[in-house]
């Protein structure tokens, strides 16, 4: 009984880490997206949509840097996994922590769904909610210094509780 329980726990941990991955530095986009495609192409999902975020060269930055608070990111992602499951879909995500230079990728999100319309709507909601709620902080790298991108950041719902 105890061994079964441990196996279940192990399965949960492995399952979560497979669908949400954090990388040090830029994302190996080809490896990640190919792996997802190979893993899910035979699962009878009619639609697999991948969104790849690439760092733009603008405002004199040489790149971006990211801090992540993983416990709440995991909770947020699990809520999305549940929401997708209710639609017979799954969500996948990879994100960088640390520095990512211009023209490299820091973020990939994907949805696999039996239905095209569900996949298109879900990827939109998933990416937008990610931008508004996922506990990740962005810094511009300019002249090797990091500056918090406050003016591009979004307050999380309920912000200001302690003021």
């Amino acid at each position: 009984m105890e061994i079964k329980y441990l196996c279940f726990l192990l399965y949960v941990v492995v399952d979560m880490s497979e669908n949400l991955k954090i990388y040090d530095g830029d994302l190996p986009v080809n490896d990640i997206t190919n792996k997802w495609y190979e893993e899910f192409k035979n699962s009878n999902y009619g639609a697999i949509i991948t969104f790849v975020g690439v760092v733009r060269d603008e405002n004199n930055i040489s790149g971006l840097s990211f801090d992540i608070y993983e416990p709440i990111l995991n909770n947020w992602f699990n809520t999305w996994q549940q929401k997708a499951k209710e639609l017979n879909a799954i969500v996948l995500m990879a994100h960088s922590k640390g520095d990512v230079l211009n023209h490299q990728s820091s973020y990939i999100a994907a949805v696999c769904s039996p239905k095209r319309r569900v996949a298109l709507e879900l990827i939109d909601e998933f990416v937008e909610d990610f931008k508004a709620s996922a506990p990740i902080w962005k810094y511009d790298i300019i002249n090797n210094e990091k500056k918090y991108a406050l003016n591009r950041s979004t307050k999380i719902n309920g912000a200001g509780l302690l003021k």
Partner: protein
Amino acid sequence: MVKIEFLGPIKKESMQVEINNLNELSEILIQDSELIPWLENSAVAVNDILVANKNHPLENGDKVSLLPPVCGG
């Protein structure tokens, strides 16, 4: 004791305080003028769950996190 941690760009070491709810935490933190802008724009989590009630009770061993505005991607 309750552990308070300041996430992301809030450059402040975590601290331990003796408090019973978030109201009491607010009264302590507003004494620090450098923190006031962060108090206005940060969300609050207790034991990694976001909370919306300032009367949220706190117990010995709880962890409170301040989450400033986010921008992943």
